[in-house]
């Protein structure tokens, strides 16, 4: 393009300083730079600093004892019983929540897809749990389980699930079901809405062709609907798993990891280590372990996606 005919523009020689930015390799990065700089500042830099803490002794209770300590924290983690307990709880908490959220969300999406009177209203209603701040939801659920002010333990007693109406959040063997119940209630809308969108994108003709081919309802579901949903399922399950594994709000508010660490998951353990025990070094080391575990999980899932997902 020539600009020489336009007198308002400087001649070409004067703009030479800009030429290096005009090179085809650099130019795209120039346009991306605002977001790249922002991402570096708010994510990448803190991440690197955080990871570096894992190899340092930084505890506010031992201010004189700071400095690089190599893999000492990780050796401690290897010996840490509370860490293993939290790790087991994390798996339990994450997979129970995800599986229940997913299956109930899928069921709800199929119901909404089927269509009924007042469907639009319910579709809006279902989204409500997301509009409530998690802190409030957690408090409300904690109160619901409290036999003094909440009905849940009385109902469970009436149904014969409990021997007497006590607070399940106080019983180490079943306390985890409290936050899981709250989390399932909170997470169903996400799956319902995303899967409903995916369901609605399946052409009606697929169902008609399957009906004519003689497929039963179950066969239609397993051989048509599920393969079509697979890409969405993989992505949403991955997102939610990472999310829930890191999601400390409900547990922190409802049980603070107790009683006797029976609801302690890694993210609450990290939070408590950092902000109650003020041992930032050790908390960072545990975070690094959690990060590695989640990265492995995400990689596995994405590999699975390449192998199984054929619709797109």
């Amino acid at each position, binding site marked *: 393009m020539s600009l020489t005919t336009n007198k308002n523009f400087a001649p070409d020689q004067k703009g030479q300083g800009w030429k290096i930015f005009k090179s085809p390799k650099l130019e795209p990065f120039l346009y991306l730079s605002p977001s790249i700089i922002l991402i570096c500042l708010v994510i990448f830099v803190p991440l690197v600093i955080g990871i570096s803490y894992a190899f340092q002794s930084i505890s506010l209770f031992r201010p004189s004892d700071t400095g690089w300590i190599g893999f000492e924290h990780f050796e401690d983690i290897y010996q840490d019983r509370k860490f293993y307990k939290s790790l087991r709880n994390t798996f339990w908490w994450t997979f129970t929540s995800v599986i229940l959220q997913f299956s109930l969300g899928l069921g709800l999406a199929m119901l909404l897809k089927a269509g009924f009177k007042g469907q639009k209203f319910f579709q809006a209603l279902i989204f409500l749990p997301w509009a409530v701040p998690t802190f409030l939801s957690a408090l409300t659920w904690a109160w619901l389980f409290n036999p003094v002010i909440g009905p849940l333990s009385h109902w469970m007693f009436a149904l014969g699930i409990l021997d007497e109406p006590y607070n399940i959040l106080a019983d180490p063997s079943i306390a985890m079901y409290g936050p899981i119940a709250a989390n399932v209630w909170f997470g169903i809308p996400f799956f319902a809405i995303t899967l409903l969108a995916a369901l609605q994108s399946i052409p009606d003709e697929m169902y008609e062709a399957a009906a004519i*081919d003689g497929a039963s309802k179950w066969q239609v579901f397993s051989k048509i609907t599920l393969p079509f949903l697979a890409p969405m399922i993989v992505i949403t399950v991955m997102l939610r798993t990472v999310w829930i594994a890191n999601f400390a709000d409900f547990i922190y508010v409802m049980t603070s990891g107790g009683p006797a660490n029976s609801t302690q998951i890694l993210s609450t353990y990290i939070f408590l280590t950092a902000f109650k025990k003020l041992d930032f070094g050790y908390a960072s080391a545990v975070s690094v372990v959690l990060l590695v575990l989640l990265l492995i999980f995400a990689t596995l899932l994405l590999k699975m996606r390449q192998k199984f997902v054929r619709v797109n």
Partner: protein
Amino acid sequence: MSNIQLRRISKSYGDVEVMNDINLEIQDGEFIVLVGPSGCGKSTLLRMIAGLEPITAGDLLFDDELVNELAPRDRDIAMVFQSYALYPHMDVARNMGFSLEIRGEKAQIIDQRTQKSADTLGLKGLLDRLPKALSGGQRQRVAMGRAIARDPKAFLFDEPLSNLDAALRVEMRLEIAKLHQRLGATMIYVTHDQVEALTLADRIVVLNEGKIQQIGKPLELYQSPANLFVANFIGSPTMNIFDVKRVGAELQLVNGALIGMSGGGAAVSFGIRPEHIAIVAQDKGHVVGTAEVVERLGSDSNIYTQVDGLGQVLIRHHGNTELNIGDKFGLEFNVSAAHLFDSDGIRLTLDK
């Protein structure tokens, strides 16, 4: 294979009635084409036969057995969709064998049957491809292969060729005709293309506004259309229709020309196909016209002629016509091939 009967079939959506009193008996092995303009209800009728659309009233019988309430999967019919509706996550072989897979057939039998129908349709090298890796014509073949592989009671086609280009359409039309001859199966075919209807059908059902206009063999529809709608719809280029009035014993065109037909007391319209008008000297013939447009199609030519007081008349002439725009000539109607229609558009039977 089976015969299919439709008795007084109606279809309404709420208060809106879209099909009314459809009666049709389809013989075993017959090729029936449902044809009509878009919105005439032909696809709805096909979908009712398939079981994809509930029947509001009337009886649908397969082999004298009432199937109104049967789900599509229990009717044992195959359908080829306009969009093909291939399963995108299954390769060609699995697409074709899907109904057998559903039925729980042995893998060996499924393999055998898909191989056989793939051979029939020339899909042999494509069996492990996904539909997205196929061309439109190949997808169409897979959709047909899927229907053939299951050996159904009847084949239903819902405008199967309308997504193909013209050359491919002619080729696939031929394949469908061959397929019908080879399989001898009952086939019901929906199209808006009268050429497909005329070339494929044993019998054509012309539909308009949810009603059957005429049922007949292709030539019957062409030679003796039941009413103005069929006369206009079947035949390309379309029939010329002129208003007529009775003067004494003779019928007269609106421009005063006599057409030499005396029968048909209630006649108000006179229909003559473009191929039944001869070009003669100016002083002969029924009327005189001037050529306005000459379309040379090679095998024949269409001559759009302006006739004073009558408007535009289309004439079909031989391919090497020497007529040019502006030429004046006489038009002679082949009266024995012409039709008269009454004020309701019904064709009058004439004793010739």
